């Protein structure tokens, strides 16, 4: 048993903080999922991504042969936690490439695919920016029912259909797409494949969607006879479902970043309530303590999951457990945060750079983003289904 980080790991944490001090303005905090919204934020995020890539921090646990740092999962965990605490932008480059496209390609990709795509991701290059096409208008939680088709014709696949809620599609160079390659398959989970689509392809239309606060994060994609080379198939044709589950488990490994975000908000709230004198009030103290307990509880679980991965153990339900747990944590921290800053929490999140804004706008930003987080990568309830089925071996409910 050992609950401390090694000296090397602690030194790495310090190195990240030095990077923050050097590269991010003092009052900066990159709010979750906002960097895709406007060109200026995106440019800044990509400039930081480039610097992070030079240090190989976008790809800490990746093997060196893929342009990674070849470090342990624990170092990656430390980085992710610091990313949340400091609001370091550019770490996900449109949220797909470093998170799951790269790691999935390492497992399922051909030699050519690995050589073509992975170095661009690792380099923090604009051509290494990916988006992911899973959800469709009629396929959300029941993802396996997806209908977008890829029909093989000679050396090509011809894609038709529609995707929705595609985050960062307006920033991405490539699309990681789940599609139906065998419409006759008896079971819906069969007949699904993963393919790579060039976002510059003819017949592919990106239509922006605004979320409820007006931020442009996700999009609709329309495919009208989009042709891609057959070599863009990832892994085995019609066996894409299990690859997709693997990719999703990578996507759900963000709990420790969420804990970093919440810890920062707690720290900011402590200072805010001290400065305003609110901290003397007993109900405020209880609220602060409540979230302090919840953050520690979520954090220790996230650590446990990453520790298991670092030891080569298979994690089956843990990422889903932690994703669901952090969904709940986000809601609570942002709700309590808004209760504490009071009426100031109604400042428009997109026009918050003004004198009325409190805590760098991070509380109201999280308040409006937390439900998006609770939906992305599978809703909270979808995660609970996974934990029930694979963690507790409960009989399937549906």
């Amino acid at each position, binding site marked *: 048993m050992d609950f401390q980080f090694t000296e090397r790991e602690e030194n790495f944490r310090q190195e990240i903080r030095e990077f*923050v001090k050097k590269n991010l303005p003092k009052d900066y905090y990159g709010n979750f999922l906002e960097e895709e919204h406007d060109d200026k934020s995106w440019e800044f995020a990509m400039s930081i991504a480039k610097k992070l890539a030079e240090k190989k921090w976008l790809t800490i646990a990746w093997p060196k042969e893929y342009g990674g740092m070849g470090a342990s999962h624990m170092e990656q965990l430390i980085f992710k936690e610091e990313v949340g605490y400091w609001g370091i932008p550019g770490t996900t480059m449109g949220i797909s490439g470093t998170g799951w496209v790269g790691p999935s390609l390492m497992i399922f990709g051909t030699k050519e695919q690995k050589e073509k795509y992975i170095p661009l991701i690792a380099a923090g290059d604009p051509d290494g920016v990916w988006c992911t096409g899973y959800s469709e208008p009629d396929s959300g939680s029941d993802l396996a029912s997806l209908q977008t088709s890829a029909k093989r014709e000679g050396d090509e696949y011809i894609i038709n259909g529609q995707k929705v809620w595609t985050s960062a599609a307006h920033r991405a160079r490539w699309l990681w797409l789940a599609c139906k390659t065998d419409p006759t398959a008896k079971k819906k989970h069969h007949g699904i494949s993963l393919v790579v689509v060039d976002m510059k392809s003819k017949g592919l239309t990106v239509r922006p969607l605004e979320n409820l606060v007006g931020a442009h994060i996700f999009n609709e994609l329309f495919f009208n006879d989009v042709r891609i080379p057959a070599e863009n198939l990832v892994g085995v044709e019609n066996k894409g479902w299990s690859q997709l589950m693997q990719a999703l488990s990578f996507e759900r490994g963000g709990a420790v970043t969420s804990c970093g975000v919440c810890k920062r908000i707690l720290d900011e709230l402590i*200072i805010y309530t001290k400065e305003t004198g609110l*901290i003397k009030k007993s109900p405020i103290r209880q609220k602060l303590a409540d979230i*302090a307990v919840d953050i520690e*509880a979520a954090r220790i679980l996230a*650590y446990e999951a990453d520790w298991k991965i670092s030891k080569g153990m298979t994690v089956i339900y843990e990422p889903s457990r932690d994703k669901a747990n952090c969904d709940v944590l986000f809601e609570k921290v942002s709700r309590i945060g808004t209760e504490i800053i009071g009426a100031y929490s109604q400042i428009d999140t997109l026009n918050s750079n003004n004198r009325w804004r409190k805590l760098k706008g991070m509380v109201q930003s999280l308040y409006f983003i937390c439900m998006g987080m609770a939906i992305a990568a599978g809703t909270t309830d979808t995660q609970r289904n996974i934990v029930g089925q694979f*963690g507790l071996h*409960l009989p399937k409910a549906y």
Partner: protein
Amino acid sequence: MDFSFAQDQELIRKSAKEFFEKECPKDKVRELKEEPKGYDPNMWKKMAKLEFMGLVIPEEYGGTEGEFVDLMIFMEEIGRNIVPCPYFSTVVCCAMPVLEFGTDKQKKEILPKIAQKGEIWTLALTEESVSYEPEDIKLKADLDKDAYLLTGTKLFVSYANVAKKMLVVARTSENGNASDGITVFIVDAKTKGISIEVIPTTARDMRCEVKFDNVSISKENILGEAGKGWEVIDYLIQHASVLKAAEMSGGAQAVFELTTKYTKERIQFDKPIASFQAIQFRLVELLTEVESLKYLVHKAAWNINVGTSNRILNSIAKAKANSVYHRACYQGIVMHGAVGWTEEMDIGLYHLRTKSLEFDAGEADFHKEKIVCDLEQKEPLFLSLYK
């Protein structure tokens, strides 16, 4: 980082688990509810023989000189199996502070009797206010030549009815801060002027009212320094909150496991009720709570073990334990349906202990206040970086 236990720690868990499964099945727990002593002296003797009492007591005082984590593991197993016995009051509340604050003479005299013979001890701390705040220590101890005269009443003292000795926390001075002027006395339970009455409680863990009427205690029988007794109690609260949380974590794990098992077996609408999402989501939320409590306790205990006791973490562990244990029992019983609300099912035995566990070593609000106090004194990271 390593969440796993060493082999010898796993052995302690295994031997405790096997011992309690054999010696203290749930029928025995039910029988002991009617036993006026509140514990089984034979089982207690066996526990001493197996050296469970001396887990953290050094060899020179008759123990096996184990580590704090060993004791944490043992408390988890006590909680998992519900073992009605004065282990917490004797070992955690008395032997540990004696080991930390006792003179060599006191340690030599007291600890071997606990470690080897299982002499029963208890802590008389809380009073009418039932709080753990220093200002609520009102029991008076006035110096009269070479002895103090103790007068006042302690409440919810566990197993005082069978204890040979007790640590009594008294106010020896009204001057200064509330935490000044408190003294801890080592008192023979049979001393003249002490009267003990068992309070009927749901856990039947022999909570007593202990009245002191001019009880004369010699100056030699002070633990630690006169007037500085709150140091002893603070030390105790730090350690006891983690160990009580461990006991609750073990209990919550057991409640979760037996509830999950039951929902897989119980058929309604021609299906196991575990196949309904309403049940599944409750179980998953409970699993998350129970697992987070487990690891919070492990981490807090490990920190104490390596000498980096973390006050915030100790309080977080107990605050979390208080909410998780209650929630596990309440949700577990509701998922069982009406049968869960009967004496027949084991889950009720756990729930009868909720309030006893919750108010030992500090209730949730007490610990939450400590957490905020600590947080507000520290400079947050984001402020210190750019200096």
